[in-house]
């Protein structure tokens, strides 16, 4: 008992990436704690879903399959998770920091009085000594997250309450198959045991979901533009460069706020975390909230007309000058030198 649980989320019939990323992290935590990794999936028409989850190292997959669980609404999902958590007493419960996870997590943590840390950027296992109470806690979950607009990094712990719950944004953890042949057991949740009429009072009347058009998270090269690009029109040179070198276009929040790029391209603490092979930051100052989402890039090129821009400190190559002069040159010399 007292295992690590991941609440999985479905995305168009597939287990969402963020859930697979959490399973990968959960497996590592379970190995450190010498316990099992369990997954919970709630929804409808979930037949065979466990085959997507086992390779990430889940020992048990709890499946709640019922038409009343799709589309997601808070109360039915919370009732089931509360019930399952209440019986199986996990030591750790992880959710994606998605609109679903951030709706469900607090509801569950309040019902179980368990404490929840939102938007963690790292999860580790460690000990804690409470000097005042003269108590030592072993193997706690360190929930590490930026706070205060990213100006500090805080390590949060829940010494006494279980489960220790945390949400993590998509793209923050790495997704890695643990063993393609890994086999766990399926446990079907008796939905009727938990679901009462009173949980069904909120109704979804209408729903319009768009497929995400951009996929910067999985791109190995990202050309990212900031407020220094100056206009939406100027952003076009970034698309041109991305096109010739096979990259996706990202953006800083200031660029998104100014309308130069769409929100789903935003990189950073409140956007997407990326770790490409190459990140080209164009007209981006490099505030901590931005770099939090790209500092693990293997290589960073910073193009900025301010030689003192903070982004230069984490860049492998610093090009000092005007983006609108430099990027067309990059396109030109790429075309000239590549076959």
């Amino acid at each position, binding site marked *: 008992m007292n295992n690590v649980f991941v609440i999985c989320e479905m995305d168009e019939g597939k287990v969402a990436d963020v859930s697979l990323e959490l399973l990968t992290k959960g497996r590592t935590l379970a190995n450190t704690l010498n316990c099992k990794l369990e997954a919970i999936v709630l929804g409808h028409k979930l037949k065979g879903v466990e085959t997507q989850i086992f390779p990430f190292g889940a020992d048990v997959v709890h499946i709640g399959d019922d038409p009343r669980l799709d589309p997601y609404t808070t109360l039915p999902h919370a009732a089931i998770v509360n019930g399952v958590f209440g019986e199986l007493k996990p030591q750790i419960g992880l959710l994606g920091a998605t609109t679903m996870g951030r709706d469900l997590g*607090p509801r569950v943590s309040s019902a179980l009085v368990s404490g929840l840390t939102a938007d963690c950027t790292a999860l580790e296992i460690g000990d804690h000594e409470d000097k005042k109470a003269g108590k030592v806690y072993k193997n706690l979950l360190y929930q590490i997250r930026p706070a205060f607009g990213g100006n500090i990094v805080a390590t949060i712990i829940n010494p006494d309450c279980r489960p220790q719950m945390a949400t993590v944004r998509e793209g923050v953890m790495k997704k890695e198959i643990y063993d393609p042949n890994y086999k766990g057991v399926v446990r079907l949740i008796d939905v009727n045991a938990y679901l009462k009429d009173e949980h069904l009072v909120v109704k979804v009347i209408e729903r319009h979901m768009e497929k995400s058009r951009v996929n910067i998270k999985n791109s190995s090269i990202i050309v990212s533009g900031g407020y220094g690009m100056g206009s939406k029109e100027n952003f076009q040179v970034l698309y041109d460069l991305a096109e010739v070198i096979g990259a996706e276009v990202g953006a800083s929040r200031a660029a998104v706020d100014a309308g130069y790029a769409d929100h789903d391209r935003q990189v950073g603490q409140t956007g997407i975390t990326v770790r490409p092979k190459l990140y080209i930051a164009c007209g981006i100052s490099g505030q901590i909230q931005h770099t939090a989402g790209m500092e693990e890039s293997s290589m960073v090129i910073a193009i900025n007309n301010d030689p003192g821009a903070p982004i230069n400190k984490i860049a492998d190559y610093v090009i000092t000058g005007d983006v609108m002069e430099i990027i067309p040159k990059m396109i030109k010399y790429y075309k000239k030198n590549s076959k």
Partner: protein
Amino acid sequence: MGLKIIVLAKQVPDTRNVGKDAMKADGTVNRAALPAIFNPEDLNALEQALRLKEKYKGTTITLLTMGPGRAADIIREGLFRGADDGYLLTDRAFAGSDTLATSYALACAIRKIKSFDLIIAGRQAIDGDTAQVGPQVAEKLNLPQVTYAEEVLKAEKGKIQIKRRLERGVETVESPLPCVITVNSSAAPCRPRAAKLLMKYKHARTMSERQTQAEDYIDMSADRPYLNIQEWSVNDVETDSKWLGLSGSPTKVKTIENVVFQAKESKVLTSSDKDIEELIKELIVNHTIG
């Protein structure tokens, strides 16, 4: 038919202007060192309430905020924009609360306010970015919740329709009243202060504030009860102290670190044709691009 609306609003340190002394040694926020503002998404929440007040005659808006004495500013700011009254929940016993202890205290205060049809909160507060208090208040009061609200479409016959903004789309949901909703920054911005209301409520004060006014201050609240901002301490609401403040907070801050950049060794180039071409060639040769 009028609605009784409670808006949850928080005074937050302006995290866009954080200085060195922002954190205390125990890991809690040193609010005194920072400018304090009305949490931005709570203004979006207030605007949704104000729109309902315009639409449904007889609707009243009550603000509820928990914080130090100076958080009375939040109530005044709300009154200037069209709220009807407000409560400041303030006591040392609430200090150091995490989201769970905060939502417990707020839920206890809401139980004391007693009659309401709708509770509107902001999605999240910029000091913590947690987005937990709204759903947790809902859970504590055993009410349905609707998060990520962008627009309240209607609230009639005991039901409310709300448009939600999700990561990749929109959704319209219907919930029975009473319920708790949390409002996104993508919702309509809050209207500015109304000059008339500013005049009317300029002298609104809590009891503690009245006691610390300069000598020439003339207290008019006896004739004008609307100038009295209700102040509640822990003794005014029914609570169990084990759920309050630091002791009622399951999450603890173990350590905090200031963020420092690790400077890398970088190659500095100019925008000259020669530098750019060299760089591109290097990237092609080592298979970074191409």
